[in-house]
């Protein structure tokens, strides 16, 4: 399996698309960091911090989902997966190797982006890279890489994988929130609060956004309506539950992908 991970990782790094994504991400990340210098250095959830967070929420899931899902779909479409089946490797072994290769490739992009931001921050002394962003990015790659593998397995071909990824991205980043905001105009405030809490658990993007507020100690940003909810999640058990539920966001998509591929196996 180690050899296959290495091979997959190498292929990912050689991919022109991956290289382009790396450049794009690093440039935008550095640009936003430079813009950050405009703000006065204060604690809390400022517009610059929000921009940083949104940049991560918009770009990392998009890149991870598209590249990850297309990589898996391409294997199935090109017959590479059929060839691999002739080797003594389980379906889960294949999926796990793909997952690890995607995660490692994106970790490298993050390392590059954080390296540039830290270098610039060393020179100017004004930029910030809060550690919580580093952990949030790692969590983001871990979760969305698993969803990407699931989308790839679900897709019939690369184009289908791309469209599936875009749908998942749009739903989790935008549509889910818009639907809830629209519902808020017809339901009571308490109902809106409970629907939001349910959405936080069902939507990986919101889950990670909430994780940012939890781990940065800024849950008060979410407003007094969520006092009890955030109090619970900022307890020891809350942190434990957060880690467990995050792990489920990795295990469930990979498990489902394994199940689907096992069923599909006879056809591919």
């Amino acid at each position: 399996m180690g050899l296959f991970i290495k091979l997959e990782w190498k292929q990912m790094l050689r991919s022109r698309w991956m290289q382009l994504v790396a450049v794009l991400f690093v440039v935008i990340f550095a640009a936003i960091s430079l813009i950050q210098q405009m703000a006065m250095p204060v604690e809390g959830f400022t517009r610059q911090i929000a921009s940083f967070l949104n940049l991560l929420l918009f770009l990392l899931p998009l890149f991870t989902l598209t590249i990850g899902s297309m990589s898996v779909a391409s294997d199935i479409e090109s017959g590479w997966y059929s060839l691999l089946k002739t080797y003594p490797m389980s379906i889960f072994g294949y999926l796990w190797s793909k997952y690890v290769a995607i995660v490692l490739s994106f970790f490298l992009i993050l390392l590059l982006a954080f390296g540039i931001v830290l270098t610039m921050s060393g020179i100017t002394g004004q930029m910030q890279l809060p550690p919580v962003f580093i952990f949030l990015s790692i969590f983001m790659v871990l979760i969305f890489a698993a969803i990407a593998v699931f989308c790839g397995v679900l897709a019939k071909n690369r184009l289908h994988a791309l469209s599936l990824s875009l749908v998942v991205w749009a739903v989790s980043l935008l549509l889910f929130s818009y639907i809830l905001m629209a519902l808020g105009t017809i339901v009571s405030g308490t109902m809106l609060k409970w629907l939001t809490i349910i959405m936080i658990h069902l939507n990986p993007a919101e889950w990670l956004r909430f994780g940012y507020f939890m781990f940065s100690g800024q849950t008060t940003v979410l407003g007094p309506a969520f006092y009890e909810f955030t109090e619970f999640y900022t307890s020891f058990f809350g942190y434990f539950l957060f880690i467990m539920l995050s792990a489920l966001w990795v295990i469930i998509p990979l498990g489902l992908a394994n199940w689907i591929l096992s069923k599909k196996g006879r056809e591919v």
Partner: protein
Amino acid sequence: MKGPRFLMAFFVSLLFFALPASADTLQQQIDKTPEGGTLKLFDRDYMETAVINKPITITGGDETLLMSDSDKPVFTIKDATDVTLKGLRFLQSGSAVVVKNSSHVKLDGLEMIQMFSGVQVYDSSDVTIKGLTLKGIDGQFASKGYGLAVFKSNDIELSHNNVTSVQDAYYLEHTKNVTVTDNVATDSRYGLHFMYADGIKAERNTLTRNVTGIMLMLAKNAELRHNKISIQWDWNSSGFTLYNAENIVVEQNTFSGNRTGILSQTLTNAQIRNNVFSSNQTAIEFTAADKNNTVEGNDFVGNILNIRSDGSDSIIDKNYYDDYGGNDIDENGVGDTQYVALQSFGQWMVREPAYQYFIESPAVVMLNQMDKQTNRVEKNQLVDSTPMMEPTSDFKKEQSFHIWALLFGVIMLGGAIFLWRKGVKQ
């Protein structure tokens, strides 16, 4: 043999005369001091309380420490004039000083540690409290007292005091002609709390990490200038809360990192001008009942929401907004198109607090971009028709060099490039 006996008798008698002086109670010492005289307390611990009802100056030595042995304050100044307490240290007591029905009282350089409450002034006039430091007890705000509290008094001056970890650092109720300058309030519920006050001047105060920096309730004729209001970041926090207040001037203050810079309700005839609002969640929040307020010449930088309201008739003019996207073709320093601070999401948040969860979320950022296009035609609500192109404040910061960040950055960057190249080549 007579010589040594005489000497012994002399020293014993000295001891006899000296002992009672330092053994006098605080009250006895005060009683023995003539009117208008100065009493210098001994360098020892006093665990007692005393009442002052005559003109007197009391000072402490380097080792003087005052504690109350009951629920009563250490000093009660009652029906007195011309009383000065200077350089005294108080420890672990319910209250240090209570002033009642007195005038010309001066408290100078007092130090208070682990106190439930510091100073309370009732029905008095011409009271000056300066250079006082107070640290309250640990625990919930409800279990703490006020730092400096003034009730039904006039001509009060509070300056250069530093109060932390109490319920309200400076509380003033039913007061007239109050000057509060150069004070510090931290980690308390309210920094400055004015109730039913008339004629307030609060200048150059530094208010940090309180629930609310300045709370002005049912007050009128206040001037709040040159204050630094930062990191009021708790649930429902704000820099200033102006509730049911009128004729208020808020000028040249700096609001940074607050949940809401200025939160107003039923505010009338307020002038908010030449302030800096930087990196607040919401800079200014008006409500419908506000009337005839002006927001002019302020700098709005890095706030998530600049001005929000559920509909008010405030005048917004000549402010600088860092998110203004207009041009200044005639180069007169004023934007050629109006700035609309109105955001649908901001209005929703005022009406339904549960919406706050979505603040600056990706969905809301997109929504705000659409709003900017549709709100261009807005004429009435939260419109600044003369937005400034340059801020009035200087936001330049000093350049500095961080060797560790640079080192880590270079290592991370080098490591990433090395790993990538190695991965590609293998």
